[in-house]
C-alpha cells in the first residue's frame, strides 16, 4: 500500500471510530441515563458507507440524510459537541435544540438536513440539485436513505423527475436489510433493488458497503460521473445495522445471533483494523493510541455538550419565520 493510501485509510478509520464511539456513547451512556428524548437511530455497522461516501464528496456538494444521520453528519465534519448537544436538546446544539437526533442539519457544511419522514428527502434532494443546475453552480447533491425508502411514492416520483430533468443528484440507498422489524423480502416485491433505477433509465448499482475504501472508490467514480454528465444515479450499498432500529428496539424480529455473526465477519471498523494490523501497515500500539485519542475526543465533546444551556422557553417560536415585510400573527 502506498503511503497516501495508508494516510487515507487512517483518516477514514478515525472518522469511523468517531462515529462508532459517538453512537456507543448514546447507546451505553445516554440511553440508560435518559440524556435524550424520543428515539435515536444508530448506524453502528454502517459506518463504511457514511465515511466512504462522504469523503468522496467535494466541499461544494450538498447532502440530505434521514433519521439515521450520525454517520453522515459526523463524517462530513459536524462538530461533535454541537451534535451531542442537539441530541440532548441544548441550545448549543446544531439546531439549537429544535430538531434533536432526527433533524441534524448544518448549513455551513452543506448538510441540508436529516429527514425522518422516510422518502421525503428524495424529492428535496432532487430539488436542490435542480437549484444547483439552474444557478450554474458546480457541485452535486447526495441523498442517503434506507432500502425501506425505495417503497415510497415520493422516491419513485423523484427518481423519475431527477432522471427526466438530468439533475446532478446521487441517491445512496443503504440496504441494511431491515426497515425497523420488516425484512427486505417482506416489503419489496423484487430483491434486485438497484434495478428500480432502470425503470427511469438511470444508472443503478448494487455494491458492497462494508469496505470503506471500496465505498469511497465507487462513490468517487459515481459522483464524478454525475458531476460530468449531470445525470443522477442510484447506488445501493449492502450493509447491516448491528444494533436495534432505534434505541428502544427489542430486536425480536431477527435471529438472536444474526447480528453477532455479521458483526464478527463484517464489522466495517474491524475490517479496517484487520487491513492495518494484518498487513502490519500500522504499528499495533499506534492503533491503540488512535482509539484512545478518538475516544477521548468523543468524551470531551460529550462533556462540553453536557454543559450546554437549555433553550429558553420564552424563545420557543424563534426561528419559525424568516423575516419578510410581514411575519405571522402569533
Amino acid at each position, binding site marked *: 500500500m502506498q503511503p497516501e493510501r495508508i494516510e487515507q485509510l487512517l483518516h477514514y478509520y478515525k472518522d469511523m471510530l468517531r462515529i462508532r464511539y459517538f453512537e456507543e456513547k448514546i447507546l451505553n451512556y445516554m440511553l440508560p441515563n435518559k440524556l435524550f428524548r*424520543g428515539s435515536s437511530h444508530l448506524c453502528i455497522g454502517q459506518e463504511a458507507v457514511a465515511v466512504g461516501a462522504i469523503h468522496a464528496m467535494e466541499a461544494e456538494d450538498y447532502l440530505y440524510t434521514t433519521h439515521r444521520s450520525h454517520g453522515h453528519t459526523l463524517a462530513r465534519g459536524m462538530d461533535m459537541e454541537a451534535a451531542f448537544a442537539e441530541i440532548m436538546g441544548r441550545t448549543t446544539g446544531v439546531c439549537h435544540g429544535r430538531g434533536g437526533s432526527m433533524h441534524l442539519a448544518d448549513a455551513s457544511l452543506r448538510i441540508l438536513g436529516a429527514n*425522518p419522514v422516510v422518502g421525503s428527502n428524495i424529492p428535496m434532494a432532487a430539488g436542490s440539485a435542480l437549484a444547483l443546475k439552474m444557478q450554474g453552480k458546480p457541485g452535486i447533491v447526495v441523498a442517503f436513505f434506507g432500502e*425501506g425508502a425505495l417503497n*415510497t411514492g415520493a422516491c419513485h416520483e423523484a427518481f423519475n423527475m431527477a432522471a427526466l430533468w438530468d439533475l446532478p443528484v446521487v441517491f445512496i440507498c443503504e440496504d441494511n436489510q431491515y426497515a425497523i*422489524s*420488516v425484512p427486505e423480502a417482506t416489503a419489496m416485491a423484487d430483491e434486485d433493488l438497484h434495478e428500480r433505477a432502470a425503470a427511469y433509465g438511470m444508472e443503478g448499482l448494487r455494491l458492497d458497503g462494508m469496505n470503506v475504501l471500496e465505498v469511497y472508490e465507487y462513490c468517487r467514480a459515481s459522483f464524478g460521473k454525475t458531476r460530468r454528465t449531470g445525470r443522477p444515479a442510484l447506488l445501493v450499498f449492502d450493509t447491516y445495522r448491528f444494533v436495534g432500529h432505534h434505541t428502544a428496539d427489542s430486536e425480536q424480529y431477527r435471529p438472536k445471533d444474526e447480528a453477532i455473526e455479521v458483526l464478527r465477519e463484517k464489522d466495517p471498523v474491524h475490517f479496517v483494523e484487520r487491513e492495518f494490523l494484518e498487513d502490519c501497515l500500522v504499528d499495533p500500539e499506534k492503533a491503540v493510541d488512535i482509539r484512545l485519542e478518538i475516544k477521548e475526543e468523543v468524551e470531551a465533546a460529550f462533556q462540553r455538550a453536557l454543559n450546554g444551556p437549555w433553550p429558553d422557553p420564552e424563545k420557543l417560536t424563534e426561528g419559525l419565520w424568516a423575516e419578510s415585510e410581514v411575519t405571522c400573527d402569533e
Partner: protein
Amino acid sequence: MSDQGREVVFAQAIRTALREEMKRDESVILWGQDIGVYGGVYGATTGLQREFGKERVRDAPISEMAIAGLAVGSAILGMRPVVEIMYADFLMHASDAIANQAAKWRYMSGGQFKVPAVFRSPGGGGSGYAAQHSQNIEAWFCHIPGLKVVCPCMPRDARALLKTAIRDDNPVVFLEHKSHYTHRGPMPKEEETLPLGKADVKRQGSDVTLVSWSRTLLWALEAAERLQDEEGVSVEVIDPLTLRPLDLDCILESLGKTGRLVIAHESHAFCGVGGEIIAQIAENHLDLLKAPPKRVCAVPCPLPYSEPLEKAALPDADNIAAAIRKVVG
C-alpha cells in the same frame, strides 16, 4: 357501563378491540408497518399475527398511499380493514385515499358502495419526537364530510369505540396518542361497545364546562381536581370521544348549567376542533355563554425537540387551570 374491570394500558385496550373483532368477524384484517412480529411500534398489535396468521395481519412496506388505498379498495368489496399509519404525521401521505376516496366513494356513486375502513394512527407530542413525529391532525379529517373521527383517551372507551368503528359501515379515522399507550385505566372483561357520536361526561361540575380529549383529557381532569380542591371551583369535564359527528348536545346541556366554557386540546388552535365548538355555540347558543370561552392548545409552532421547549409548546394542567380561572374570574 357495569363492572369497572381490571387495569390495562391503552395499547392493551386497542389490542383487545382488534382481537375481539377479528374473532367475531373474518372480514376484519390488519396491515401496517411493523404490526406483525413486532406488534406495532407501540405494541397495539402484539401477538395478533401469531394468533390470526400472516394473511390477516400483514406487515406493510413504507407505502402510506397504498396502505390506505388498498384499505379503501378492500372495504369496497366487503372487507373491514383496520390499517395502522405508524405516525399521524404520515396520514398526510394517506390523505388522498382517506379524504378524497374513502370519504367520497359512497356519495359519488349515488350510494352504491360502502367503505367500512378504519385508519388508526398515533399522533401527539410530549416525548421528544419533534416536529415531524408529533402532530395532532384530527382537524384535517374533521373538516372532510364523509369521515368519522374518533379520539379516545381512556382505555375502556378506546376499546369500546374501536369496536364500533370497525363495525361501522363508514370510514373512520381513529386517532391514538403516542405518549399515552402506557396509560392505565380499568377495562371490563366482557365485551362492550360505545356509539360513535356520543360524548361522555367524565366529571360532574357546575361552575365551568371543560371539553377535552385524547391525552390532554388527563391534564383537564388534573386541573379540575386541583381547582376543586384548592379553589372550590366545580368543573364539569366532557370527553367528546368522537369529534365528528360531534355531540354538541352534551356540551350544551352542561353549558346550560355552567355558562362557562374552556376547551383544551393538544392540536393547534387555528382551524381546530376547539374553535369549531366555540363557533357552533356562538352561532346558535350565544345566550348560554356567561363569559367569553377559552381555548388551551399547542403554541402555534412546529413542535420542538428539546424538553423545556416542548413543555412550553403543549397544554398542561397549569395552562388549563389558568384558563378556567380566567373564565370563572
